[in-house]
């Protein structure tokens, strides 16, 4: 029986987009957590970490409440794009994003905080704005750790199952990611398909984790 590779491509695409979003969003949050003192800072950190410990179904439920077709956000989306957000691959991206964000924020905050403070102070005395300091000094010095964390976030996104099922559904050829396809194949007795996908996704994840370890500062 020929194997449908669409779920693998979809998973890679979802993971890629969600990782890019996680980098942009995660770095901003990590920057605030590492550099600013504000009330409730540790609560923000804890809230961002929450998806790491909550059951994926809880996240899926929250997402349906926030971006479902009946929610204000879902309606605005439908007004603008003329189609619902839920049950599309974009919803899968959001589910994956929520699960990869904690990894990124945690690692990026630690990486930004571990950058030599005197280098940052030196840049300030040399007249560098906070913006230039971040892009030219802090980020390059934290680069390896952040790339390692991004690889980890990518790997994590590949494996998202529960929340994706709830907000994106399991529509073959549209929102069926590898994790869902494996479940489906197994349920329908297509053990060969399931096994092939299992092996492929394991190999991809192993490769990414090895890459991430290699990037991590020794």
């Amino acid at each position: 029986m020929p194997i449908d590779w669409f779920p693998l491509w979809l998973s890679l695409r979802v993971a890629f987009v969600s990782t890019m979003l996680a980098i942009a969003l995660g770095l901003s949050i990590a920057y605030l957590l590492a550099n600013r003192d504000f009330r409730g800072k540790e609560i923000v950190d804890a809230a961002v970490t929450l998806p790491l410990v909550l059951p994926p179904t809880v996240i899926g439920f929250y997402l349906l409440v926030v971006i479902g077709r009946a929610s204000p956000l879902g309606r605005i989306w439908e007004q603008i794009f003329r189609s619902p957000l839920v049950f599309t691959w974009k919803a899968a991206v959001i589910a994956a994003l929520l699960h990869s964000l904690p990894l990124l924020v945690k690692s990026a905050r630690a990486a930004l905080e571990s950058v030599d403070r005197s280098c940052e102070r030196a840049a300030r005395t040399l007249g560098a704005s906070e913006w230039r300091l971040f892009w030219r000094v802090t980020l390059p010095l934290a680069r390896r750790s952040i790339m390692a964390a991004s690889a980890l976030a990518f790997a994590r996104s590949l494996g998202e199952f529960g929340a994706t099922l709830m907000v994106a559904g399991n529509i073959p050829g549209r929102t069926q990611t590898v994790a869902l396809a494996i479940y489906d194949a197994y349920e329908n007795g297509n053990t060969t398909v399931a096994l092939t996908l299992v092996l492929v996704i394991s190999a991809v994840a192993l490769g990414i984790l090895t890459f991430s370890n290699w990037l991590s500062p020794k």
Partner: protein
Amino acid sequence: MIQASIRKTFPPRPDSTGFSLDIDFKAAAGVTVLFGPSGAGKTLVLDSLAGFVRPDEGRIMLDDAILFDGATGVHLTPQARNCGYVFQDYALFPHMTLRENLAFAAERRPRLERHRRVKEMLERFRIAEVAGRRPHEVSGGQRQRCSIARALIGAPRLLLLDEPAQGLDAPLRGEFYEVLRQVRAEFPTPILLVTHDLDECFELGEEMLVLRAGRLVQSGAPREILDRPASLDVARLLGAFNLFPAQIRTLDPGRNTSRVQIGEFEVDGPYFPGRLKGDRVTICVRPEQLTAAARNGRPGPNQIPAILERTVERPQWVRLEFSGGIAVDLPRAEYERQRDNREWVIEFPPAALRAL
């Protein structure tokens, strides 16, 4: 010209005792040394001037610009202060070459001038031939020169150096003193240097501020402070004195003489203004002002007999430590002639004695 009046209090916390800084000083062009033991607040002073620390109150003026004013709430960011800061660990950007480090700092100069300015500084600080290397690929001395060049390239109006010679070996230290003398000659800005090394104060400082526990305890030329420490505290901090508890026996302002009792002996001293007969004082005298000789019969006037307990050898001189806690520095040759003696006499030149 920098004029600072800084007050800053850190209340005691479970993990640390409190600290308060309360200091007023001025520094003109040339090198002013901030001297004091660790924990005296020297780095806190630099950080307040550079803008990393906001004082509770006071005022900091650099030339005619207000950097900080507690009363009106002015507190310029470090970026806006234009102070060069050479950090203890140099804080060169490890991911940039030396040239890129300088170029980063030159970015606030006009675009056309940058390239020429970087080239000029690389040459002036003798790092042109390693300009393409990263900081960890060059020697300690080159790193240090690069960090000074980087601090100076933006033409700062104040240069701050935090223990720059800390951890350098003797030849590098000498080289650094040379570089700093060059900087002093070529850049007409006040230079504030933090150190706890007395030799460095003398090597570099035109002015010296002595700090202890967040307070300025004496200021002046290093020579002057060594000759006339203002208090027992200062004398202890400098660590370069014999300090003996003593009592004044007689005072004669007419002949500018006195007689003081140190332990069981009496020696002549100068007249001590403001002191009374019977006062208990601390007599302060530097080890190199005393002379020691092998004992030969009865001690003469102003000589105290003592037993040699220990010697500390230095390249040019030898420190002799005697019973009663008396330290004497002798030129090596003079010590060699009489080294096998146990019993010595120590002569106190009257004019060298100071009462604190």
